[in-house]
């Protein structure tokens, strides 16, 4: 059974249709990368999955549970909060909480969400996650004392701490200096190897080819091409995909 089924998601801002009917599904343990030119709706799609935007129409199903069904209308705040927890989100701008240390950033939500859980366990889990991110010596640093790459790795640990079914990344390395992207891509690759279910919006074509089980190419609010990395990146069929890839290659 698919871990995620997205059916015909639509989203308008004002009277501009940004997502025009997005459908796809993915299996547990898969890594799915989304490519597409700027403005094609990639961020909006991830935001809809995390309910930072409420889709106007469509269906979102996780593990067979329908989280959103366009016709069911208004979701209450607490329903929203529960649905959100199926997804994790790593933002382009990290969005760490500046007044908390790396470790506190990771443990804050688990502590607030389940007051009955043993604090010591949460702390241990947080430390293990940060170690996995290669940050064992940075746990007690505040975000402003960390490099962009380190901040983004803390953000990944923070998202993982809630054990989401699907972890979403929105251009996780776009805000980083080029020499810092490697360390972030490396930990994402390790997560892929450990079969973390992930959706990654990225412009790093080579990286996407290496880690993805499948690639979606978006254009103008639609998914215009979908397939294995070798197929979509090396032998694209769609004209827009070809154009996008050649523009990226020219830049590189």
């Amino acid at each position, binding site marked *: 059974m698919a871990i995620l089924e997205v059916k015909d998601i639509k989203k308008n801002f004002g009277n501009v249709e940004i997502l025009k009917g997005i459908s796809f599904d993915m299996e547990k343990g898969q890594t799915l990368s989304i490519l597409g030119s700027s403005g094609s709706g990639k961020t909006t799609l991830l935001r809809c999955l995390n309910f930072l935007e409420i889709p106007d129409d469509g269906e979102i199903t996780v593990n067979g549970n329908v989280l959103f069904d366009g016709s069911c209308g208004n979701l209450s*705040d607490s329903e929203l909060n*529960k649905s*959100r927890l199926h997804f994790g989100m790593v933002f382009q*701008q990290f969005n*760490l*909480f500046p007044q908390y240390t790396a470790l506190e950033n990771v443990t*804050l939500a688990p502590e607030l*969400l389940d007051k009955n859980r043993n604090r010591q366990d949460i702390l241990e889990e947080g430390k293990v996650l940060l170690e996995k991110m290669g940050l064992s010596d940075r746990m007690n640093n505040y*975000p402003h004392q960390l490099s962009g790459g380190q901040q983004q790795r803390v953000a990944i640990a923070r998202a993982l701490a809630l054990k989401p079914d699907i972890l979403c990344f929105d251009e996780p390395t776009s805000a980083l200096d080029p020499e810092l992207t490697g360390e972030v891509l490396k930990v994402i690759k390790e997560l892929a190897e450990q079969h973390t279910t992930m959706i990654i919006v990225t412009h790093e074509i080579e990286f996407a080819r290496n880690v993805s089980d499948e690639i979606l190419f978006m254009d103008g609010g639609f998914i215009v091409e979908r397939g294995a990395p070798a197929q979509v990146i090396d032998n694209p069929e769609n004209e827009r995909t070809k154009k996008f890839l050649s523009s990226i290659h020219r830049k590189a």
Partner: protein
Amino acid sequence: MFTTVTLSLLDGFLGTLRLFALTLLFSLPLGLIISFGSMSRSVILRVPIRFIIWVIRGTPLMLQLLVIFYGPGIFLGRNLWGSGSGGRFMAALVAFVINYACYFSEIFRGGIQSISKGQYEAAAVLGLTRTQTFFKIILLQVIKRIVPPVSNEVITLVKDTSLARVIAFYEIIWEGERFIKSSGIIWPLFYTGAFYLIFSGLLTLMFGFIEKKLDYFR
């Protein structure tokens, strides 16, 4: 003579302090409420509140004191404040609280609106409620940003209290001036400056300490 003057001025300074402390006590929370109103999505709430803030910030506090003190007598035909010193104090307090609440509300609004949307969104995807987000994530960041402008405003308030003498509110300058008439000496008036300087110096130290305490994050 010096001791007599010092003791009298201290007595006047108590009036100053009382107005200062009670103004802060009421205007800070009222300012927070007004700031929420001025950011409200409802036009019926937001527009009148912004209008009031504009009027209060756009006219002299001295004028507001006069209007609040004499207004009820003129417009309602009855002196709301009574004739004693207690009434004058109440009128002064009300004028100061309204005035400073409006200034504080703008500082709070600026602080709250300067927090990036990303902070709210990061909290939301972690499943935090609105209350948790405000108290655990947003509030301390806002406090850090508003400490410098609030400290300016508070120090201005120390000196602004002297304006209350237009409605014959008893405070330190009133007391200092009395010596000109009663004893023909002017130095007590200058001496009042020392009281202001020492008190605002203490406040500056205190706010500096708070700023330092919040220095651990950016």
